[in-house]
């Protein structure tokens, strides 16, 4: 408890270091998963280049069409993944905005290949953290601060908007939506420490209501972190628990790591605003 009382926010340097560390972990996790799933994006897989390039049929007569074919090719995607790993190593050894810019471009190309995003919100937060870090690694302190503020505001936005859309929805207020989402989890019924079985057995739905209201409360009250560094730190601990529960239930490991990489920025910002 005394640590929480003494906590006075992170320094800019510490915030950026932590952000970059978690960003590297997150990027590596994503890349290894892509490499493991190669059979799905190779030329014999589902997301094969011969189909994807049809998206740009209107450019077929253009001299740039070869570029589209090249970008969507199996070999280029393999190259991109290994390049991403190499860039992560370079970023770890020689931190610099140029590596972040490369990561941002690669991330964008991968998302376009999957027609927008591969993993929804986690890809969007990845973009936010990459853009913020791009500014964060600038030599100018003002520009670096802007980058960190950019990540922090988007992080707050992510919780607040998620809470806002839930509170407008009666299914969430009565716990039905949470029940539905947990039962729709891709994990087996006997898996998840018996969670699905417990949810099915909770006929009164009281537990689901309580958990739903707690989720909405956590998300909507997130802006209060701006008023106290101690509250901010306690929220951070709850956020880790919250994202871990989401991973546990839905297997969304990418969300856990990328949200973790965004939190240091907010912990810096709340120290500055106070």
């Amino acid at each position, binding site marked *: 408890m005394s640590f929480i009382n003494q906590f006075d926010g992170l320094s800019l340097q510490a915030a950026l270091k932590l952000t970059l560390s978690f960003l590297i972990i997150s990027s590596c996790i994503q890349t290894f*998963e892509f490499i493991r799933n190669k059979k799905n994006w190779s030329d014999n897989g*589902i997301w094969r280049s011969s189909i994807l390039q049809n998206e740009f049929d209107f450019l077929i007569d253009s001299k740039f069409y070869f570029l589209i074919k090249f970008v969507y090719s199996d070999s280029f995607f393999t190259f991109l993944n290994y390049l991403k790993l190499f860039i992560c190593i370079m970023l770890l050894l020689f931190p610099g905005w140029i590596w972040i810019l490369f990561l941002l471009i690669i991330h964008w190309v991968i998302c376009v290949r999957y027609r927008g995003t591969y993993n929804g919100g986690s890809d*969007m937060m990845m*973009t936010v953290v990459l853009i913020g870090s791009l500014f964060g690694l600038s030599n100018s302190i003002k520009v670096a601060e802007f980058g960190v503020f950019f990540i922090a*505001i988007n992080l707050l936005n992510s919780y607040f908007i998620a809470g806002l859309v839930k509170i407008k929805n009666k299914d969430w207020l009565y716990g039905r939506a949470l029940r539905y989402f947990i039962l729709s989890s891709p994990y087996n019924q006997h898996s998840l420490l018996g969670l699905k079985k417990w949810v099915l057995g909770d006929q009164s739905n009281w537990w689901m209501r309580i958990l739903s209201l707690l989720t909405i409360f956590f998300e909507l009250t997130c802006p209060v972190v701006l008023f106290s560094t101690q509250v901010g730190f306690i929220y951070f601990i709850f956020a880790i628990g919250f994202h871990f529960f989401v*991973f546990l239930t839905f297997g969304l490991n990418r969300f856990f790591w990328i949200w973790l990489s965004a939190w240091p920025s907010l912990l810096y910002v709340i120290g500055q605003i106070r």
Partner: protein
Amino acid sequence: MDIRIFFLLYLLLISLFIFIKRNSISSKFYLIRIFFPTWRFFEGIQSKYLIFYKFQEQEDWVLINENFDFEWFQLIHNPKVNDHYVKKSLIEHFMNDLQELQMKKKQFFDVEVEKLVSYQLILQMVKSELKTGIQKKQNSQYVTQFSFKIVALDDKGLFLNRNSKQSELEKQILLNDFSSLEVKKYALEKGIYQELVFFDSIPVEFES
């Protein structure tokens, strides 16, 4: 431009997209989609899309259903579950594309659907499942064609009673367990099981 103005403009744009765009990847919006986060996570109960396939007319439909075992290691490496989610969103993209096609033209032909990139991707997805299905089948050399269908499971109604009390059949529906005919019959009677798209007699041909 003052960096603060850039920042405000960005937030304004994001707010606009929150109200205008909802999961739609129409036209070429997907090219810049990642730059406009919506943060509308787990917004509400929506229809689930299920894909079924079969080889012969007289056979039963087989549901493509992926279920996984939880492991702690998945916190740092979870390719299968992430792949499951991208396949799920592919079906939603296809349904979106179909809706868009419907909005453009009141009547459209199969050939127009077949031209859709999302349809071609779905077809590859079904084919990859078929490979496993064929391997399990005896006399697999006689498998020459297949059919598949997409079903919308609107099980929201099962959550609407005040206490969310469900019968055993309803619990099976909630868990996508259509192994018994009784479950499907019950879902059809309740009007929560709706066949949306049906593709028949597609030749089986796989690359080596």
